[in-house]
């Protein structure tokens, strides 16, 4: 191999060896015991370096092995199909952003720092929380970090969560808190699909480190007793954590209006593609309280001035972080989702105040329309009689599994099955009325022919 586009020095090897003053490249590896040296090529990739065109053909082959759908899937579960504006993709494709790294040298990283500061600021205003870090991995890990943070603050090991929590987040929470032996208690939901306040009153006690509320919850339903839960938690000295879909916050009360301690969520719904699981964008925010801020995980960008008094941005409160504090750090996180935070900032800026509201309203309307159509056509009814956003649960007269497979065969991907006859559907701005009608029409045919 005497050249490769990504290995510029192959043909310089002898020259550099000479300059180094050794006899052969092996001399640079003489400290590696012979018995562990690999004496063969690694068996990876295909048999040779592929050209770009061959890579393109391979990717096309993979793409064609995925099922082509006629319309975006009606799937939610914490991440939903949305339209990603070209301007968002364009900005985050800028070399200066996407080939950079953590802005350890602020003087040469002002663009990134300001963009992250703007993300923090825009998200702070959406949440009405003062301090937002510049990203966690995703909602699940943000929630886990919030629970670990509460434990660091009050040393208690019991965390109370609703049974209507997103189950995928719950699994992450369980794993991440396994090391600290955190105990997780669930509050069941009512027939209306909301937190059972009576049980909550019993479950939230002096032992409780933190109480988690998800709004809207896994079923898409708006919780309406958040004030009450927050009151209960405060009385018992527990930290309140609220998980939010940021897209809904132009319509409903943000965590700040409930005086929540920590807010978490995912920025996926603000301009990120589904990406089969990631990268997404974990939101993590606290209110203006030093006790909280100093225990916060993740990176923070702050405003300051330079030696000439000019405004500038830099990483702040770094003594919380692992690279300075090691085992005393507030988290082990270092590589995060900064570029996704910028995508969020661009997205929020593009929509602006009015656009965010318009989009939320449109999604609200379309998802309600879809449920109403299911009901009108007599092929499904709502499982919970509560207001909802983006996602809703439908009970079908026949097995949903059957509906699902038949829809799939027709190039349509339905909702998420949660029990034999029930499924959660997600409807957003990417589902046109025509698509919704077509999907429901197909479901009708399936139900009627079975």
């Amino acid at each position, binding site marked *: 191999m005497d050249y490769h586009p990504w290995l510029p020095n192959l043909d310089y090897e002898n020259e550099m060896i000479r300059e180094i003053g050794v006899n052969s490249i092996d001399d640079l590896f003489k400290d590696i015991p012979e018995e562990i040296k690999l004496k063969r*090529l690694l068996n990876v990739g295909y048999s040779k370096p592929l050209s770009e065109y061959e890579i393109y053909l391979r990717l096309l082959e993979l793409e064609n092995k995925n099922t082509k759908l006629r319309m975006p899937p009606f799937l939610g579960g914490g991440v939903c199909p949305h339209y990603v504006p070209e301007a968002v993709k364009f900005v985050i494709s800028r070399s200066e952003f996407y*080939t950079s790294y953590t802005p350890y040298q602020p003087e040469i990283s002002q663009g990134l720092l300001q963009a992250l500061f703007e993300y923090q600021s825009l998200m702070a205003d959406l949440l009405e929380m003062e301090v937002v870090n510049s990203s966690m991995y995703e909602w699940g890990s943000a929630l886990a970090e919030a629970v670990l943070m509460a434990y660091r603050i009050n040393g208690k090991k019991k965390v109370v969560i609703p049974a209507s929590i997103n189950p995928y987040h719950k699994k992450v929470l369980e*794993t991440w808190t*396994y090391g600290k032996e955190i105990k997780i208690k669930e509050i069941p939901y009512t027939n209306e699909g909301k937190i059972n306040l009576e049980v909550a009153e019993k479950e939230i006690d002096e032992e409780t480190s933190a109480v988690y509320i998800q709004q809207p919850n896994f079923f898409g339903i708006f919780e309406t007793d958040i004030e009450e839960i927050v009151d209960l938690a405060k009385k018992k000295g527990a930290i309140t954590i609220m998980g939010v879909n940021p897209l809904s916050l132009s319509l409903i009360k943000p965590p700040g209006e409930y005086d929540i301690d920590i807010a978490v969520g995912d920025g996926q719904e603000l301009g990120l593609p589904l*990406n089969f699981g990631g990268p997404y964008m974990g939101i993590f925010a606290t209110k203006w309280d030093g006790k909280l801020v100093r225990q916060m995980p993740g990176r923070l960008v702050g405003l300051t001035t330079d030696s000439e008094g000019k405004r500038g941005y830099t990483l702040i409160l770094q003594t919380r972080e692992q*690279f300075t504090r090691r085992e005393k750090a507030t988290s082990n996180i270092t590589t995060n989702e900064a570029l996704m935070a910028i995508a969020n900032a661009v997205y929020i*800026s593009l929509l602006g105040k009015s656009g965010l509201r318009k989009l939320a309203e449109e999604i609200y309307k379309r998802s309600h329309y879809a449920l109403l159509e299911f009901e009108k056509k007599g092929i499904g009814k709502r499982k919970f009689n509560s207001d909802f956003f983006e996602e809703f649960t439908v009970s079908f007269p026949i097995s949903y599994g059957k509906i699902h497979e038949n829809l799939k065969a027709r190039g349509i991907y339905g909702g998420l099955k949660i029990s034999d006859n029930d499924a959660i559907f997600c409807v957003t701005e990417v589902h046109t009325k025509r698509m919704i009608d077509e999907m429901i029409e197909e479901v009708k045919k399936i139900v009627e022919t079975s």
Partner: protein
Amino acid sequence: WDEPLIYELSSNKKRKQGIIIPEENIDVKIDIPEKIKRKNDLEIPELSELEVVRHFIRLSQQNFGVDLGMMPLGSCTMKYNPKVEELTSRVVENYHPLQDEDTVQGILEMMYEMQKWLAEMTGMDECSLQIPAGAAGELAGVLMIKKYHKTKNRERDEMLVADTAHGTNPASAAMSGYKVIYIKSNQEGLVDIDILKEVVNSKTAGLMLTNPNTLGLFEENILEISKIIHSVDGVLYYDGANLNGILGIARPGDMGFDIVHINLHKTFAVPHGGGGPGAGAICAKGELKEYLPYPIVDKEGGKYVLRTPVKTIGKIASFYGNIGNVIRAYVYILGLGPQGVSQVGKMSTLATNYLISKLKDVKGLELLAPHRPRKHEVVFSAKPLLNDKGVTALDIAKALLDRGFYAPTIYFPGIIEEALMIEPTETEPKETLDKFIETLKEILEESYKDPEKIRQTPQNTSVKRLDQVKANHPTSVTPSYRVLRLREKGVIKILK
């Protein structure tokens, strides 16, 4: 430019919107219960598309990335990110992670191949791609160790960590409830075997090690270290952050490591995007592979399916990890091929030692154990310069910024005073290495001639050195525009 904040671009008195929201003619009333309606107006600016795009493009011009110049950030492996990786989005972009396996066979096939290839490269038996970044991989690994010992009913509460380790190692151990025991390095910068032997006991859960270590030195006693740890049923954990230095040369599995995490974004050139997103994998050998986070992609009767290891620690991410980036690493491996991948450790080591040969005798710098070859990176100390002229590693870093380079990692690892940690990677051409050497030499010469001038750098950047006290002080700390606004209104005060 002096680019204002996005909030300052808009008076918010006029109606603007940067994108049209699609609207359907649907007769549904918004009927949200009064109790939960948002009360306060959104404080978000309204702008046209041009204003948003221009703002962020202008900001981008005030930032530095690998596409603009060498970023010799030690332990960060800032490789060039081949543009062909941009072709990957169509394979994954619009697929929902909750879709049935039969609808995403292409993605699963890619994941399956990656799992196999990563196992081959590390000498492990199996890999999981659940890991969004390196630190999450460490957490997964340490939790695996925890569950492993627990399953075996062993009481183990101590995690050993080399004093040269990345800060994430102790942090991950602590997050998992371990007591962290540091192993001091010997004079050569390697794990001190005698100390290790003393420290190891029946409470030892394992040892977290990166090899080559953060000084770029290969732990040549690795087989003995492995024996010591395994002699007390400890687990040997490999921090993959430094894998680049030995890729194709030696495999952690063959050294005795039981668990390995990989930073795909480093070793396989996925753009790190201003701090992330990254992508990772966690791999294990023998018994421990049954503790891996789920799911693992398997092949059954020609179809790809998801499998859960029997003793799994659970899930690290809600879905499958950063698949959008895993596929970029996949493309990198395709493009390098077995021949190219097998050259990575060699060529990155060649570049490092070339730098060393040109810099080791430069006045002002010193090097621990100069006779030892380094692998992917090298740590110089600028202590002689500090002693001679009062110029610090930080000053050198800032002077580099003025000259078209990003700075090395500084003040890490802690055992080297005034550390300058340089990792060139194999993707920087010799021409650039030569330029970097020349530039660093000039700075050191200048430091001796006119130290004050170097202390005044950077001059050519968009801002000068920043006031860190103001940035962090409880009375002035400003983590959002909201804080600025509320502080001006007197609504919020000192951060207590």
